[in-house]
C-alpha cells in the first residue's frame, strides 16, 4: 500500500509528510514530524492528552486520521511559547503548580488556549465544562482551573 502525501501547516509553518492510510494525526505529529509535545493518553478520545486545533477547532488528534489533515491549519503545544517566552497560560500553570507528572499538561494548555480565544472571560463553571474531556490523575483539577482563570484575567488586563 502506497503512503499518502499530506501537505499542511503546523503552528503557522508549512509541513508535509507521508503517512499510512490508517495512521492517526497524533502518530504523524509524534513519529513523522517529531512534535512529541502532543501526548498519547488513552488513544480513544477519552482523556484529551492529544488535544490539538485543526482550523481553529479543538480536536483529539488520536481520533483523526493524518490523511484528513490535508490542507488544514494545525495548532499544537509547540506553537504556544514564543521562543523562550512562555505563553501566559504556561506561565500560570507553573505559578499555580497546575501540573505534576505533566502528561496531561500539553492537552490542557491547548484546550485552555482554544477556550480563551473563543471566550476571554469564562466563568469557573464554563472552564470546568470546557475541560471535562481533559483528564488529570495528579492535580485534582482545582489548580488547573485557577491557573486558567488567572491567565484569562491577565490576558484581559493586558
Amino acid at each position, binding site marked *: *500500500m502506497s503512503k*499518502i502525501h499530506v501537505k499542511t501547516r503546523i503552528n503557522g509553518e508549512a509541513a508535509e509528510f507521508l503517512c499510512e*492510510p*490508517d495512521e*492517526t494525526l497524533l502518530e504523524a505529529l509524534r513519529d513523522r514530524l517529531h512534535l512529541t509535545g502532543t501526548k498519547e493518553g488513552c*488513544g*480513544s*478520545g*477519552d482523556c*484529551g492528552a492529544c*488535544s490539538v486545533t*485543526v482550523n481553529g*477547532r*479543538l*480536536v*483529539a488528534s*488520536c*481520533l*483523526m*486520521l493524518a*490523511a*484528513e489533515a*490535508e490542507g488544514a491549519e494545525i495548532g499544537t503545544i509547540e506553537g504556544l511559547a514564543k521562543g523562550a517566552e512562555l505563553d501566559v497560560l504556561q506561565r500560570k500553570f507553573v505559578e499555580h503548580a497546575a501540573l505534576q507528572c505533566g502528561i496531561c499538561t500539553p492537552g490542557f494548555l491547548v*484546550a485552555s488556549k*482554544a*477556550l480563551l480565544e473563543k471566550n476571554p472571560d469564562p466563568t469557573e463553571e464554563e472552564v470546568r*465544562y*470546557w*475541560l*471535562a*474531556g*481533559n483528564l488529570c490523575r495528579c492535580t485534582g483539577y482545582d489548580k488547573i482551573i485557577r491557573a486558567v482563570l488567572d491567565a484569562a484575567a491577565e490576558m484581559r488586563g493586558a
Partner: protein
Amino acid sequence: MQYLAPTSVDSAIAALTDAAGQARILAGGTDLLVQMKSDMIAPEVLVDIKRIPGLREIAREAGGWRIGAAVSGAEFTEHADLCADWPGLAEAFDLIGSTQVQGRCTLAGNLCNASPAADSVPAMVAADAVARIVGPKGTRDVPVAEIPVAPGKTSLAPGEFVTSIFLPARAPRAADAYLRFIPRTEMDIAVASAGISLTLDDDGRCVAARVALGAVAPTVLLVEEAAAALIGTKLEAAALAALAQACESAATPIDDKRGTVAFRKQVVGVLARRAAEIAKTRAEERA
C-alpha cells in the same frame, strides 16, 4: 486499508460500491476510529465525505434548515439562528462527548452509529427530522426514526450514505427540549433520555407534539400515546402525569450496570415530563 476523500457525491457512491471489502463513511470519526482501534471493525476502505461540496454547510431551506452530514457539534451550537429554532436538538447534540469530540462529531454519524443511547437521535425524531440518503439507486428522503433498526444496525442499503439532515420550518409558538439521565454531570452515556417538540396555539394550548425516548429500547421510540396526552391540553398536571405514564408504559429497557428496568422506566417518564415543561416555557418565550 485505503483512505479516499472524494469531492462529489457520485464518486463517494462509486467508492462505496467498488470497495472489495467493507467500506465505511468517515465524517467526524469519533465512533468510527474508536471502533477500528478496538478491532470491532476492520474496513477495507474509508470514504471521507468532508471534501464533498455542501456537506459541511448549514443552509436555510423551505423555512427550515438543512444540516450537512459533516457539520460538527461545535459548528451547530455556534449557529444562533439554528439554535433559536431548535434549542432542544442543540442541547442534545452538545451533550455528545467532550469539547474535543464536539469539534468533529456529526448528527448523521450519531444517527448511523445506531446506538440506542445516542443523544441527538431522540431530539431529531422529536423534531421530525428527515435524513437525505444517496446511493446507487438515487436519492431518497427518510424520516430519521426509520434509520436505526437495531443496536449498531441501520436501514441503509449497501452503497448508501446520509448527506444531510433536514429540520422542518418552525411555527411561531413551537419549541423543543431534551433531557437525559446520567450518574454524573458530563461525559457519560444516557441511562434514559427524552426529546420533546411541541407547538402551542395563541391560548397556550398544545396543538402538536412529538415525544421520543432514548436508551429504553433497542432503538429510539416515538411514543404517539405520550404526544396524545399533551395535545389539546395546556400541559396541566394531569396531562403531564398522563405523558409520564405513557412513556413508562412504552419503554422496554434492559437491566444493566447503568440502570435497572424499573429505574429506567420511572426516570424516562420524569424526564419526559420535565422536558415537556421546558419546551412549553421556550415556546411561550418565542411568541
